[in-house]
């Protein structure tokens, strides 16, 4: 598959955006600049970026608690994301949503959901709207290996397959749900194998390889737009950090080995992508470094932006409840 330099460089940029953003979030969370949970996406960048770059800006995505990577991969504003984590009016959701509920409807980000698998039916519904109206936008939903065991996934996949909805079920198999290995939670070998239960294609992809993710998703998008129905894509990946910020403190006992972590860190998606760009003569080391440096600046700027954005005032408490206003009881 031919991929333009522009796209390949955008992959690099978006992956660096996520990486730097997450590292900054960890730093600022430790520094006590904001509270609440946050689930780092570090190590998994290629999955969201490869998948989102196969979409048009008029397509929709929805996601889960591990939430920063998806909107940033789709081109969401870094300032808005950071300000949301800081709980400020400049955030995507004016500070009402926080880390787990990033959303930017203006660019098709229908929002991240804290309840595991709960956005899967919702994304299926966006695809249903496309189908009913005869439009050609598609919808993609990110969910984890743990989430794949929820009934919501079964019901949504069956519906989508029956009605041939233009939806892509994108399972980020980072191999663990908190401390639980997917081998102890998924009764079948690969999550993508479950596609056969719905008569749809199931594709297992190397989730550290942004291009592989892009290619698999591009084919799924083609199918979806052609009216051929949904696809289940499993991106096999790994999270480097603990499940969520703060949670490492309470966990007792190891659930994965240091060797395992080290081995996966060696397959870093940024390294793989950068090396490929250089070895194939698409970009120089300097060009790649420049991308990283630019993005880092942007991320650092977002901290300033967030700090300078005010907290919502008390009048905001009852705002945004209703589209058609009613009195508060």
């Amino acid at each position, binding site marked *: 598959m031919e991929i333009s330099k522009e796209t390949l460089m955008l992959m690099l940029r978006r992956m660096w955006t996520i990486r730097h953003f997450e590292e900054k979030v960890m730093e600022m969370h430790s520094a006590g600049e904001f509270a609440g949970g946050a689930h780092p996406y570090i190590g998994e960048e290629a999955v969201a970026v490869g998948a989102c770059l196969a979409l048009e800006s008029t397509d929709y995505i929805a996601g889960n608690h591990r939430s920063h990577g998806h909107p940033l991969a789709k081109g969401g504003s870094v300032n808005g994301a950071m300000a949301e984590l800081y709980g400020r009016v400049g955030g995507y959701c004016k500070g009402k*949503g926080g880390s787990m509920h990033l959303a930017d409807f203006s660019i098709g980000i*229908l929002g991240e959901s804290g309840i595991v698998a709960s956005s899967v039916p919702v994304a299926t519904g*966006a695809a249903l*709207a496309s189908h009913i109206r005869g439009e050609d936008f598609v919808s993609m939903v990110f969910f984890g290996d743990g989430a794949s065991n929820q009934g919501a996934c079964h019901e*949504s996949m069956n519906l989508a397959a029956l009605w041939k909805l233009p939806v892509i079920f994108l399972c980020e198999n980072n191999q663990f749900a908190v401390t639980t290995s997917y081998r102890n939670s998924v009764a079948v070998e690969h999550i993508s194998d479950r596609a056969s239960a719905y008569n749809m294609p199931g594709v297992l992809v190397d989730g550290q390889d942004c291009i592989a993710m892009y290619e698999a998703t591009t084919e799924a998008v083609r199918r979806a737009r052609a009216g051929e129905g949904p696809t289940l894509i499993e991106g096999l990946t790994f999270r480097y950090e603990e499940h969520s910020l703060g949670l490492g403190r309470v966990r007792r006992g190891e659930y994965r080995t240091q060797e395992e972590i080290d081995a996966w860190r060696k397959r870093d998606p940024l390294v793989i992508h950068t090396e490929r760009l250089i070895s194939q003569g698409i970009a120089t080391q300097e060009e790649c470094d420049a991308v990283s440096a630019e993005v880092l600046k942007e991320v650092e700027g977002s901290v300033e932006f967030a700090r300078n954005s005010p907290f919502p005032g008390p009048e905001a408490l009852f705002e945004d409840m209703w*589209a058609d206003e009613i009195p508060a009881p």
Partner: protein
Amino acid sequence: MAQTVFVEAINQALVEEMRRDESVYIMGEDIRRAVYGATANLLTEFGEKRVLDTPLSENGFFGAAIGSSLVGMRPVVETLTSFMWVAMDQIISQAAKMRYMFGGQATLPVTFRATMYYGGGSAAHHSDRSYPMFMNMPGLKIIVPSNPADMKGLLKQSIRDNDPCIVFEDGTLFGMRGEVPDNQDAIPFGKARVVREGTDATIVAIAGAVGHAERAADELSNEGVSVEIIDPRTLVPLDKKAILDSVEKTGRLIIADPAHKVCSAASEIASIVAQEGFWSLQAPIQKVAAEQVHIPYTPSLESLVYPNPEKIKAAVRTTLE
């Protein structure tokens, strides 16, 4: 003005709103063949894309309705209250919460038509009257029509409204006949109906209990007791003022509510009046709501559970003692 059966009023509202707005579509189980009655003839007029028969997957298809509403559709989902337990996550975590959580970005014009079967031997699994639970959760508009005209007008409003609405359709009223004005339009939410005026006591009655209250009031009027009946019609929003004004006039409050009595709409209304209308009250507030047991199948027990004219009369008399 035509005499219309309650279930036909539902059908009329659906047909008229589907004609009015192409983004309205309906989904549910076996609705094409109108197994529950209200969706008759829709398939013929509106076709398969706007009349969707779903698999048995309430959490999945409720969620799909919600998701489609986010991007401009106006789904109407048919279900029974008792099947909503299966879909609770989508109703609560998504429909109710999404708009606020996303800082007002999401608009969710989705309507759930939840029929409440009770009173006819449907037993514990098919007799839920669950609106009080949904009242506790912010973000859902809660509609409880008590007659065909309100049913039609409030369903029309629900479909046009831009927030998630749950219309609790009282199954005991499905065969009820009543006048529905020829051009019955949408009825705004939050405006109670004064079913009859009176001076001695106020009965706030909900859904199927309105008829019981009317019968109780008829009989009491023979005894010289003048009862005012208020039908709130929507519980979220609730027309507090209509209730408080009436209690100010009568000094006595009875609440007739077919849902379970603990943490009920009746409890809520009582608590509002005990706080904001306290100085009007001349007697204890009486709740007449369903007994706190599951719905027994056998008629010998089921008939004991719900409010009825006798229980309501007794409660009114208690307030007058």
